[in-house]
């Protein structure tokens, strides 16, 4: 068996162990009220796949608006202008039956929160925005955007001194990335 193949097999086994450990972590306190206790590390992760929708002109207009919002944010002179562009993107009315929008909204929110965190007193605002979108009760798309948003939430939680939220967020991000990798290898 070559080193590469052996490494791949080992890595799969290792990730199975990791996922098993994560599953065990999810069993620690299945009751939501119990998890709400201060200091509890909530590692629950519910996910769903994004299937391409039937394209519509309204859907295209939305996706174009989001791409433009990112372009304006890239060209922004400062953090304030960048945040304004990203807010405008998030404020776009969401058309019906456009599941592709979900990861885009997570990316916009994550980027906005990164920008807010650069500003004085921006961390609590960013936490208020991002934490509900990534609530463990909510299902997240199996997408890089979910992992990125969870990492940003972890960073914000570290800044805010909430180590339990930070650890849970990082762990959930890692699980999303594991799922993505599994999908890529299929």
């Amino acid at each position, binding site marked *: 068996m070559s080193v590469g193949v052996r490494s791949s097999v080992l890595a799969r086994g290792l990730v199975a162990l990791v996922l098993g450990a994560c599953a065990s972590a999810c069993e620690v306190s299945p009751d939501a009220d119990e998890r709400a206790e201060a200091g509890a590390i909530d590692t629950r992760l519910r996910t769903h796949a994004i299937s391409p929708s039937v394209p519509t002109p309204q859907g295209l207009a939305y996706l174009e608006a989001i791409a433009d919002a990112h372009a304006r944010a890239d060209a922004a002179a400062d953090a304030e202008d960048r945040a304004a562009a990203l807010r405008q993107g998030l404020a776009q009315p969401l058309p019906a039956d456009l599941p592709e929008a979900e990861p885009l909204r997570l990316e916009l929110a994550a980027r906005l929160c990164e920008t807010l965190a650069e500003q004085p007193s921006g961390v609590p605002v960013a936490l208020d925005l991002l934490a509900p979108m990534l609530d463990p009760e909510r299902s997240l798309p199996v997408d890089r955007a979910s*992992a990125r948003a969870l990492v940003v939430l972890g960073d914000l939680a570290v800044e805010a001194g909430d180590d339990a939220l930070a650890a849970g967020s990082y762990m959930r991000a890692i699980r999303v990335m594991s799922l993505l990798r599994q999908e890529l290898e299929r």
Partner: protein
Amino acid sequence: MNRTRQPESSLSQLAGPPDVRREDARIAAELVALGEAEPDALEMIPAAAEADDVAVVIALFGLAHGAGPELSPLERRRVWRRLETVHGHADPDAAPKRGGGLWIGLAAAAALVLVPFFAPEQMKRTSDPDAHATLLAMGQQAKRTLGDMPGGQDQVRARALADDYAARLHGAANSDAPTGGTR
């Protein structure tokens, strides 16, 4: 509910691929033949780790998972230092490819995650420098792993998605045209 349960598997069971385990078994058999004490799992780590980076990560995972022997803080620090030394002297030509790097990043991050998980009381003490340092390392590892994944450019990704969607929309419109309509 059991936060502190120990896994049944031992570190030596986690610490390497079959050929490494065979080598470990051969060493153990020779030591027994010489009347020496059988090596414990900890002593087998460098032998497993020198094979490749994955073995190092597995050994780290085993320690983080509590699968290794009971260690004093000093012994634990020595083990991590030995592992770091082995890892640091790895042949750069034998470094895993990008995909392997991702796996290793995930595994290493997960191993770091499990350290505070199996000691949850540490997480309530934000002033604990060790717990906080572990948390920061976990975040750094998660970010590195994320950085290795494609799609890191927001505008590029959003634009590509919009372009793909537009192509599908126009393709569907063309296929609905009664007489081979063109765009």
